[in-house]
């Protein structure tokens, strides 16, 4: 059996071993180096939507800024997960996202770390940061496709498909927990209220004892989380 090709690269001054086909993000996580992410989920295909995992990659003396969740590892590349420019990119990204979801716990934490000003951009309280976690989770893991993207560009948003959501969502609710802003839950409840009030299909626990009911996750006030 041929061994998988081992690649050695440098991340933040550390020699890191990785196998071909891995991404820089995976290699870093394996080595215990944290790179902030919002749209990344280990069970899902890389998406490259939030751009927060942006790192500096130096290849043969040339510096480049790439999203580490999509960038494949290569021999002898030098990766810097923190630099003045990387920090600035992340700061602006967080500020832009905070125009949509100013109180999302993950964003609040990131804002503290990168010194982002939550009021820099005019508010557009959509609460969704279009990370696509719910859409991709429903498609790739649950394969129910109860929620999808609608429209394009700046108007892009998530939307529950009432026909599917009615049958599937209340018994699952898994996307509620992975949503960084609790918007998935709000969008579902709004869809339910508008399209099928009181008609959701509750999970059936006939024979086996009911599993602990997955509770709707309350949004913690900022003060309580810190």
């Amino acid at each position, binding site marked *: 059996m041929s061994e998988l090709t081992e690649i050695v690269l440098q991340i933040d001054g550390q020699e890191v071993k990785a196998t071909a086909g891995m991404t820089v993000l995976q290699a870093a996580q394996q080595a215990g180096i944290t790179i902030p992410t919002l749209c990344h989920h280990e069970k899902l295909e890389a998406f490259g939507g939030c751009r927060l995992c942006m790192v500096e990659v130096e290849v043969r003396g040339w510096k480049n800024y790439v999203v580490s969740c999509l960038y494949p590892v290569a021999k002898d590349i030098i990766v810097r997960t923190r630099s003045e420019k990387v920090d600035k990119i992340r700061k602006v990204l967080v500020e832009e996202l905070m125009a949509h979801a100013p109180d999302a716990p993950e964003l609040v934490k990131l804002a503290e770390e990168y010194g982002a000003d939550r009021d820099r951009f005019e508010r557009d309280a959509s609460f969704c940061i279009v990370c696509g976690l719910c859409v991709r989770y429903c*498609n790739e893991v649950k394969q129910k496709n*109860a*929620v999808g993207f609608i429209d*394009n560009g700046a108007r892009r948003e998530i*939307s529950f498909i009432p026909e599917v959501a009615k049958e599937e969502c209340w018994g699952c609710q898994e996307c509620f927990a992975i949503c960084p802003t609790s918007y998935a839950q709000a969008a579902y409840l709004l869809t339910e209220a508008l399209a099928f009030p009181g008609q959701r299909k509750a999970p059936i626990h006939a024979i086996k004892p009911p599993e602990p009911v997955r509770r709707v996750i309350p949004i913690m006030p900022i003060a309580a989380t810190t």
Partner: protein
Amino acid sequence: MCEQKIDGIIEKYRGEPGSLIHALVEIQHENHWLPREVLHKIADALTVPFAQVMQIASFYKTFSLTPKGRHEVHVCTGMTCHLRGAAKLRAKVEELTGLKDGETDAESRFTYETGACLGSCSIGPELIVDGKHYGRMTPEKIEDVLKQYE
């Protein structure tokens, strides 16, 4: 309206998820808009999740998820047409049809849209009805043009 034709198009692509856009384009041409029931039929026949059909249908401007009129009235608002008086054309079309950009009238006779640039700047300002170009348009001529379409 032309349900058989729509079903025919869907049948042609049955079981081919990759042909989603082709099917949508053909039905859009035939029916001028994409009703939800039709999108459901497409999803089932092409074995594409309905959420993804909606994603594609709402993404491209070619597709309309709301009913459109029998005739599409289009005023070019590109730079050249604008300089040659497209604003006056728009005002006249809006006055005659009573529609704003993107609207369809109650009898579904006209859908009025604006957009740039249709590539025929030399004959601007331009009015396009159902793909037919009317160049060197003046507000006075519009009424006669629109009369031809019922």
